[in-house]
């Protein structure tokens, strides 16, 4: 992992308005959940978790299907989180996050609510250390 400062604006390219629409608060809430990681890693990991949570929320995973635009914005959130993790997170954390999304989407496909997204992602942060 690198110690480069996180440029939030660069990571939010093409996701206009999302930061103000709740991503910022979600990001701050995950900053509390990444305390066990190195200080330089925390902002990117918190942002990756926040992007996943926001992406799944945009897509309405487990609820009623959303329109094309929020679905695609959600895809971009997930893809950006995946890239952030690929470039900056350990292999075990990448795998833990991916497994969390697999579990949540398999639950959704089965019609099972399965619990809050945050719980899965916080567990992934713990398992991926």
């Amino acid at each position, binding site marked *: 992992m690198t110690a480069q400062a996180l440029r939030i604006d660069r990571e939010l390219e093409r996701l206009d308005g999302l930061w103000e629409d709740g991503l910022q608060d979600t990001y701050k809430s995950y900053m509390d959940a990444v305390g066990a990681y190195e200080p330089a890693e925390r902002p990117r990991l918190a942002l990756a978790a926040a992007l996943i949570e926001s992406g799944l929320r945009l897509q309405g995973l487990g609820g009623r299907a959303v329109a094309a635009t929020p679905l695609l914005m959600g895809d971009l959130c997930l893809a950006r989180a995946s890239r952030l993790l690929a470039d900056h997170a350990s292999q075990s954390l990448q795998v833990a996050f*991916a497994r969390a999304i697999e579990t949540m989407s398999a639950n959704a496909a089965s019609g099972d609510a399965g619990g809050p997204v945050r719980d899965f992602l916080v567990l992934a942060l713990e398992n991926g250390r």
Partner: protein
Amino acid sequence: MIAQRLRFKTSSPTQFVDITEQLRQEVRRSGLRMGRIHLQSLHTTVGLAVNENEPLLLRDFESLLERLAPSGAGYEHDDFARRFEIALDEPVNGHAHCRQLLLTGFATLLVENGDLVLGRWQSVFAVELDGPRQRELAIQLDGEFEAEKVGQPLPGAKGSKAAKADQELVELELTRQLLADPDPVAVPMRRLVEAGGKRLRPRLVQLTAHVGPRHDPLRAAALAAAVELLHNATLIHDDYVDESTHRRGRPTVAAAEGPERAIAVGDFYFAKATRLVAEMGNGDVTSTIADALEAICAAQIDDVALRGAYPGDHASYLKVVRGKTAALFAASCASGAQLSEATPEEVEALRRYGDLLGVAFQMADDMVDFSPSSGKPVGLDIRQRVLSLPLIYAAEDKEVGPEVRRLLAGALGDAEVSRVTELVRSSDALKRVGDEARALVEGAVRELEAIELDGLRPTLIGLARSAVDRDS
């Protein structure tokens, strides 16, 4: 005549590397029945020898070389103060060069009935004299080849036994992965995977995984399957966005099982594919695939946004296609090469090849929408207002353009779609797109010129050309 390179890594300063089995494999793979295999060391401190592979004897050889050309014996070659233009990492290796003089740098072995002609105790050695290092031998095979293998020196040549074996490995891996998944996501994905598809992206992964020195068919198949799953995951969301009812002749996931399920299945396989890639433990490969996924998703947003200005223009078309289609072609080529530890130059050349091929492939795909013999419903792209270069060119045409634009601006029923199709065919739009796609393919082929590809080059060239000259 087939030309190849044999790459290997040595682990000690002096080492007798037995390459007999690798040469036998090359002979079998090439289909050479009667002829010769020529070997040439590409290094001044690697020799070749044919002798017995008996450990104590090999130690005798090492001792002999040490006696004849002792290390540290004051070689003038090692007096850097008297030499010009020496590299910063120039080794002290006068002894190794002198030892190589005592061996040979080239050899020819006979091949009969598809096998090397060697005596009972004979083995072929590449002799490392200044290791450990990455090494390379040039190989040429000439003589009489099995008819079906002529011109198909490496796995991946279309229709060859090796290509079929590669393809089977991917199919097995896809089946294995889908068996492990819960039914609510696995069943719809299995239906899509089993419906076919060209499997071009996994094929590119498997082919380019031959480029570097670390080719592992099983790892290449695992990466290829992950890439195919990722591609299919993007299709599932695309089909929902495009309101498509059929894909590969079967109902789409959204049409068959509802949009909620389609979103969940797409998400599941986005995540699973990235996990499978991450589990391979190659950071370069992981980053390459992640970058491609991001480019695909961004381009999909652009694609939908551009539908308000349908049919768009050439620049916006290229921007979308580079992301939606070419990004995964480029990533397939680059990641296969990265997996085999190809050099950065090779990876980047293959990435550019994949990018150009991907754009050309999409142009050819656009043309299929106007072909009555493709087996697909003609005019589907028009009906769904999908970005299409023939439409863009027809809309720009002086003669048919005004009518095309007028029709596309209104509701598109059967009559309108049929008329637009007719207008596109009557213009030179399809010819322009075909010419442009072929020019891109030639550009892709030129990207391959700068790198060493051994026998892989004809396969990659053939694959690129056949991706464009197709009717389905």
